[in-house]
């Protein structure tokens, strides 16, 4: 496994690398979504793909989430392997019936005959002042549903490795990316916490590893530590790392774990860490009620109650619709200051 110390690769480029590599190998894979082809992607994730693969495989859809999501499900049942892009996961709600009532249930209700090997991907989470209906963070809502797999990349390395695994997986996968992170990696190490420096945030060069994937259900210890387990995923990893940097100066040595997938959820790594540290904070950028954070806390209590020296603190978005004003939105997020406060509190350092 090779890491590239001075690679400059944006999160969006890593997503594209994953799709390009898989599409070159398997003609059954196609990409469909709004503006993915001629516009080169609303967020430039699919830039150049139309030129390489042509309109048969990179398809501009009309603004019809129900139709193109369900089309993806139907095509997947027939044997193709669709990648369906939502310009934002906020728009997936329009397609709810297709993506959470059809895609995950097809295998079961057909008695194992028809699966749905489709990937649904797009931007997830708040932070661009896009207002309350454009700022959804859907993982907590959808993680309820048996039959789905949910991957949440936090770095360009995750972005490439998880998306390749998602595309190859025969089950429906929701790949929850982040609009705020798409440009991360343009300046290499400078865009990330020092704990990710040395190119640890980047996928290996294709010439060094042409088949780089990250398996589902394997969390990554991004920063080892002894004093407090910090469990997180997606953009919130960076809030957690920022907090960890500050707390190191206060003598609190956090162990920061990037879950990478929530369905499957790698509790083994979490529990092993909690047995070492005795304290746990979860950082989750969805709303508090019945969130992934709640689930991680519950499972931690189930599996390691005796190892905990305090309750599990979950840091979420505030329980409000996402506001427009920049300072309000920033305050709503589970930002580094909230995370640091939680870690101090849980370790009796407040």
């Amino acid at each position, binding site marked *: 496994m090779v890491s590239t110390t001075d690679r400059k690769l944006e999160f969006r480029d890593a997503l594209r690398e994953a799709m390009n590599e898989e599409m070159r190998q398997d003609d059954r894979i196609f990409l469909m979504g709004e503006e993915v082809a001629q516009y080169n992607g609303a967020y430039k994730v699919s830039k150049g793909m139309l030129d390489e693969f042509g309109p048969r495989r990179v398809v501009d859809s*009309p603004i019809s989430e129900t139709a193109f999501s369900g089309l993806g499900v*139907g095509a997947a*049942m*027939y044997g193709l392997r669709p990648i369906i892009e939502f310009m934002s996961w906020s728009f997936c709600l329009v397609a709810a019936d297709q993506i959470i*009532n059809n895609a995950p249930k097809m295998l079961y*209700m057909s*008695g194992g005959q028809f699966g749905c090997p489709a990937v649904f991907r797009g931007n997830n989470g708040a932070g661009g002042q896009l207002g309350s209906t454009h700022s959804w963070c859907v993982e907590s809502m959808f993680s309820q549903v048996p039959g789905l797999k949910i991957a949440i990349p936090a770095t360009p390395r995750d972005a490439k490795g998880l998306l390749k695994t998602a595309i190859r997986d025969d089950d429906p996968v929701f790949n929850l990316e982040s609009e705020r992170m798409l440009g991360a990696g343009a300046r290499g190490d400078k865009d990330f916490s020092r704990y990710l420096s040395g190119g640890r945030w980047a996928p290996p060069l294709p010439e060094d590893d042409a088949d780089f994937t990250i398996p*589902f259900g394997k969390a990554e210890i991004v920063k080892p530590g002894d004093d407090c387990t910090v469990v997180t995923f997606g953009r919130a990893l960076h809030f957690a790392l920022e907090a960890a940097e500050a707390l190191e100066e206060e003598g609190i040595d956090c162990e920061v774990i990037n879950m990478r997938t929530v369905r499957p959820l790698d509790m083994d790594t979490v529990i092993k860490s909690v047995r070492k540290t005795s304290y746990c904070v979860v950082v989750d950028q969805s709303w508090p009620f019945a969130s992934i954070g709640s689930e991680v806390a519950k499972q931690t209590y189930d599996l390691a109650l005796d190892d905990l020296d305090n309750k599990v603190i979950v840091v979420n978005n505030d329980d409000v619709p996402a506001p427009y004003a920049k300072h309000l939105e920033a305050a709503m997020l589970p930002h580094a200051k909230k995370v640091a406060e939680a870690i101090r509190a849980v370790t009796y350092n407040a």
Partner: protein
Amino acid sequence: MSTATDQPMSTKSTKSKQAPQAIRASDALSPQQKLDMLGRMMLIRRFEERCAQSYTQTKIGGFCHIYIGQEATAVGSIYALNQDDPIVTAYRDHGHALARGMDPNACMAEMYGKITGCAKGKGGSMHMFDKPNAMFGGHAIVGGQCPLGAGLGFAIQYNREDKVALCYLGDGALNQGAFHESMNIAAIWNLPVIYVLENNGYSMGTAIHRGTAGSDNMKAKADAYGMRYDECNGMDVMDTYDCFSRQVELTRGSTSKAQGFDQDKGGPCFINVVTDRYMGHSMSDPQKYRDKKVYDQMKKDGSIDPILRLVEDLIDTKQATQEQIDDLDNQAKQQAMEAVKFADESPDTPLEELFTDVYVNPFDPQHKKGEPNPDFA
């Protein structure tokens, strides 16, 4: 309470608005083929009668939507297809399942919740699936199957295959966004899919004129998307067969410039199949919204009932004898009875199957990889 405007669909004019064909496809059918179609309709009729009976005996639970009255729609349309042309439909799917060649034993066992069911008892009445026979289900959310139909059409075109997908929907689905989005997407990409409106005039208890704007002008719905339109009498299996024969041929091999082909050729179609269901929306429907007696009488009326109509035609034109027809009906009754017996005697789905078929690649010990019923693998 029925109103003057709530007439049964089969009593309304069902003249095709397209130019009549000089040569009808059904003219080329042999008496044996016509008897085959009759036999399929009879099997559906007798099977559905048994379903209704089993449901009242609480051997079938949940929802059970009976296809009686609409037999010609499934048989006439499917007979115009090749065996590998994929079909997808809504929850009133027993007719399509049987017309497609699914095993009545497996269908009944499915509804009885037995391991020998086509989905191992995990789907039920509304979810008949059969991979070898290209039956893509059985779907319960009204209109939810319309995008799936577009997906089948897209996949066929993507693979450069010469197939046609049929996506059946009821008149209730006309009011769902999913239908309109699917029609639009099928039209812009010239997909090889035919949207088949099984127009029985009721979405559950709501007569069509109360729920659907422009319900007396279905062509307008196709025109709205620049799509080909046709209509047929869904109580007349030969008229249905003729209509589908011509439209399936026009749709087969559809290409689209948008998908990288040289030209737009063929394209989707919207077919209004006017029919009647004799029973309620489902077994739980007391039919307070219409005069039940009118529909109970239909099966005795040779000018309406699809089976009786074909029987009378075959006998009048000396293409079959009463004896042959009675044999067919007895066979159908026999098959239906055997299906019930098979279902009754089959073992219940074991509890372990609760946790199979959730994932193709399960990631935890709780969920296990399941095997489909070997007849459907």
